[in-house]
């Protein structure tokens, strides 16, 4: 199931919300009884009923798209639960158990996501092994990484091993973050899993966040995908340079709003259920260097590789360039089982290594605007590498955008698509700047101010914006224009 769909929006989500509220009362009641008997002490799980509702909802959510693979996920949860307990069984955490657990997770993702890619890559060296035809389970890239982070954190003593297997199942399968991230660390929600303090403010913030995310995905990303598909998916022989740039710029915005919209919806829903996930995006397109871009883009992935790969390898203390190369190779590969993603990761790896020794040292002497231009050009070009899985097409596309392909530089199709989507592109540009942040700051200031008028105006605006976002998104979902799901290969 995906979030940006009528079935999810109007059947699954309302049903879960209603059950969740009822379960909340049940938990409260059970808690009272318990504390009476145990003289006010807490139990290890203060929300058994809401957790049960969430687990069942999450399994149903997953089964909706992948009825068979749900067994794989449950199997993975059992193994990781056991591994967690084994790691923390003695005073000294068990390295062997950690190694076994991590190996299991890596094997899982290799078999189900990369086996086809690995074997056909090996075959291209001259072998002819049978290539398996496995459709990767949705979300496998996210839940295996979450499992690894859990085991590593237990090993390091950052978190306690969870003794209740259902709570590990909840952590891994929780539907807001199950299929498209963010990669939530166990430590982030370890407390909330057993004890949540849900306030009206959480519901208000969370639901607004959800609508913003929905709008990003349906109103911006889906509409932009019409442009990117028109110019990037078609026959490259007839593609003009202007069309290629338009398609690429549209894709640059599309992938940001698609991915960050999903993260917003995940964070928003999590908040409504009483969980606070970490932020995953922080206006990446305003970066002044590629190094900064990767601190703002898909933050949970970057910090995963930093904490569980880069630093254990030695970080900046020994053979830093090698460590960076490994990290960026893996970052690329994580995005999809295809060489272009590896190329894309290494492309950023090389730029970041170069920046370390050059740009970052003199950055404060260069006009900011130049740094912005430098960064955005490299980012946009990177999305070109990301988009074309076929290296031949990628080469051709690069020749087209640089005007050396022999194709026309400009044509009426590109012009018509540009004017026909000009307002959309402007909206996309504005929304990728920290405008929301400014409005939010105004809202919070208005709450502190003495006059209630500003607060009322902001509240009204917030409600009106939500209604508008939901209405327009619903209409666009009904009209069914382009609703791609970009995460199947992640």
């Amino acid at each position, binding site marked *: *199931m995906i979030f940006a*769909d*009528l*079935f999810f*929006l*109007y*059947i699954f989500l309302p049903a879960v919300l209603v059950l969740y509220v009822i379960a*909340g009362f049940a*938990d*409260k009641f059970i808690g009272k009884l318990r504390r009476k008997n145990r003289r006010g002490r*807490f139990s290890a799980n*203060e929300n058994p009923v809401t957790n049960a509702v969430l687990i069942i909802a999450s399994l149903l959510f997953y089964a*909706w*798209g992948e*009825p*068979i693979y749900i067994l794989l996920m449950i199997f993975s949860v059992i193994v990781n639960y056991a591994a967690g307990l084994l790691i923390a069984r003695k005073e000294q955490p068990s390295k062997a158990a950690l190694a076994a657990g991590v190996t299991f997770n890596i094997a899982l993702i290799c078999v189900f996501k990369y086996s086809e890619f690995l074997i056909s890559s090996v075959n291209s060296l001259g072998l002819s092994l049978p290539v398996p035809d496995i459709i990767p389970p949705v979300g496998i890239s996210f839940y295996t990484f979450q499992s690894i982070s859990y085991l590593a954190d237990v090993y390091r003593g950052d978190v306690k091993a969870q003794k209740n297997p259902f709570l590990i199942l909840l952590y891994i399968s929780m539907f807001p973050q199950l299929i498209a991230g963010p990669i939530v660390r166990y430590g982030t929600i370890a*407390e909330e899993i*057993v*004890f949540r*303090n849900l*306030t*009206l*403010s959480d*519901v*208000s913030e969370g*639901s*607004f966040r959800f*609508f913003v995310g929905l709008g990003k995905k349906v109103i911006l990303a889906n*509409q932009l995908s019409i442009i990117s598909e028109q110019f990037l*998916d*078609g*026959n490259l022989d*007839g593609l003009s340079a202007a069309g290629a740039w338009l398609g690429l710029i549209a894709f640059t915005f599309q992938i940001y709003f698609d991915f960050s919209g999903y993260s917003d919806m995940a964070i928003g829903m999590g908040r409504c259920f009483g969980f606070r996930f970490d932020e995953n995006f922080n206006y990446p397109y305003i970066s002044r260097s590629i190094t900064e871009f990767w601190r703002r883009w898909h933050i949970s992935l970057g910090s995963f590789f930093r904490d569980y790969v880069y630093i254990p390898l030695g970080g900046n203390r020994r053979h830093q360039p090698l460590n960076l190369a490994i990290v960026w190779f893996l970052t690329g590969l994580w995005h999809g089982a295809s060489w272009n993603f590896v190329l894309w990761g290494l492309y950023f790896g090389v730029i970041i290594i170069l920046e370390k020794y050059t740009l970052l040292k003199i950055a404060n002497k260069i006009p900011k605007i130049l740094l912005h231009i430098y960064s955005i050009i490299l980012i946009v070009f990177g999305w070109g590498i990301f988009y074309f899985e076929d290296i031949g097409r990628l080469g051709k596309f690069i020749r087209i955008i640089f005007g050396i392909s022999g194709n026309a530089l400009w*044509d*009426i*199709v590109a012009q*018509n698509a*540009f*004017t*026909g989507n*000009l*307002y*959309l592109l402007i909206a996309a540009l504005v929304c990728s700047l920290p405008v929301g942040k400014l409005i939010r700051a105004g809202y919070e200031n208005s*709450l502190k101010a003495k006059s209630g008028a500003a*607060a009322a105006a*902001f*509240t009204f605006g*917030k*409600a009106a914006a*939500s*209604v508008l976002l*939901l209405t327009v998104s*619903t*209409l*666009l*979902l*009904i*009209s*069914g*224009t382009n609703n791609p799901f970009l995460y199947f290969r992640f």
Partner: protein
Amino acid sequence: MGKKSADPKTLLRYQTTDRKKKRASDILYVTVISVFFAVTAAAILFLPRSGESQLEQRKLAKFPEVTVESVLNGSFMDEMTLFFRDNVPMRDRLMVAAAQIQEYTGFRSNDIKLHNVAIAEAEEFYTEPPVTGTAAPPVSEPPAVTVSETAAETDISAAETTVSPAETTTTEETEPPPEDDNVNILNNGIAVVGTRALMLYGGNFSVGEAYAQVIEKYKKAFGDKVNVYCMVVPTSSEFYCPESISSYNASQLKNIENIYSHLSEDVISVDAYSVLQLHTNENIYFRTDHHWTSLGAYYAARAFAEAAEVPFTELSTAEYDMHTVDGYVGTMYGYTQDIEIKNNPEDFVYYVPKNIDYEVTYYNYILGEGNAILGIADPIKSDFFLDFSNMKSSLYCTFMGGDAKITHVHTSTGNGRRLAIFKDSYGNALPQFLFGSFEDIYIMDMRYFTYNAEDYLKEKGITDLLFANNTFHATTRSTVKYYERMLTQGRTPAVTTTVPTTTAPVASQTETQKNISEKPETTKETKETTAKGTAAETTVSVTEPPQTTTVPETSETVTETAENTDISEENTDITE
């Protein structure tokens, strides 16, 4: 337990925040949004579902069947998701609202909006997979717009068809349904210029040559006994395409000339192009549909009648009743979802000949999944013009109700000329002007014809055979394949078996015979206007289908039925 868990009593209880304003703001916001969300959800869940979309001319997704298998492989969930997305209450109206929103994404420069305009790779698209075991050729780029041209009409015609389940004939498995029946018309996309939608033409000389050659085969098969005519009809993009997008729109004139240049002198080519070109300031093409209008067909029919040297009934109030239905928004809206098309409906006009008696028999094809031909229904007597005034997006089906059928028109002309028309949907508008020119007219769509063409036409004593295709079809490889197969395929749609009730389309209005004598009475509400349809701005309510009319069994009917029985008996013999 943790920092946040200071007071367990606040569990799931709305906490009083320090800032009351924040709390008031939250209460207000959560209330508003909950109510709105609940109302929207209730509306989507509980209002009656649309079932079908007139604008898109298709049935909407149905609630899926629950089986263990469909749940385990996930198809049940997929279809359920699709059902909720597709079959929403008030779908057509909401779609228009969505199209209006999408219009705000930008502006139209020079009043032009291009929909998937690009040069399609014609040849590759129709290349058949190699027979040898070598690897498949690299996947060619998809064409600019895949437009299933016939789906809509055949759907409608299936709904309109009346079938008595017990008596239908059906094909056996031996007759494979046309493999690419739902023909994707190859095109370079659609340009909306002002309020007119133009499907841009790709053209293909080599297919055009093959088209000419297959018509030559028909001429050879019939020799001197049958006059064979070829009339390739240009479409609107030839005459209304602005210069700025002409590089995406190939010349239909050149393609037509190419086809005609490959015809021998034995085949009579009909120049519809020149006559249409003379009248481009009249409404000869629909703006919102890919077809031509009755008026366009009229000029072409006149050119054909001239070439065939048959009498022709000129357009005049004395000869025709003109019927106008307003509010027509045709296929182009479904293809483009372009709000300019939706917001600018046009009139649908047709002309019913007054002074000629005629009788129409339909042999409807029963269609299954993907327009596969399941069989042919028993003949139905009905009018040539069917009332689609309640289905405004399907008004072109006024002519015979669509494509998936063989239509026989018997007229009172009695001049010994019997015409067969092999056509695509453009041909549907032609016959209304030819009732006074031929005593029998057989109208057959090349996509739905299961008999052997040579046997069938000889059997019917055809004297004139007209190939009437638009330029798109005449240069599409599948058209050539259809015509070739029609010459070689078996004599028959095989054995008579019973079609299960479920496959029989629902009965509706048309199971009535046209009663010629009652004609003036049924059309009394219609205002008649003078010859050139352009002068007419009047909106007239169209003739009610003569449902209550009692049907006198004419001798012709009997003959007709007998003839049909003959064929099926013959067929049975052959297959046995």
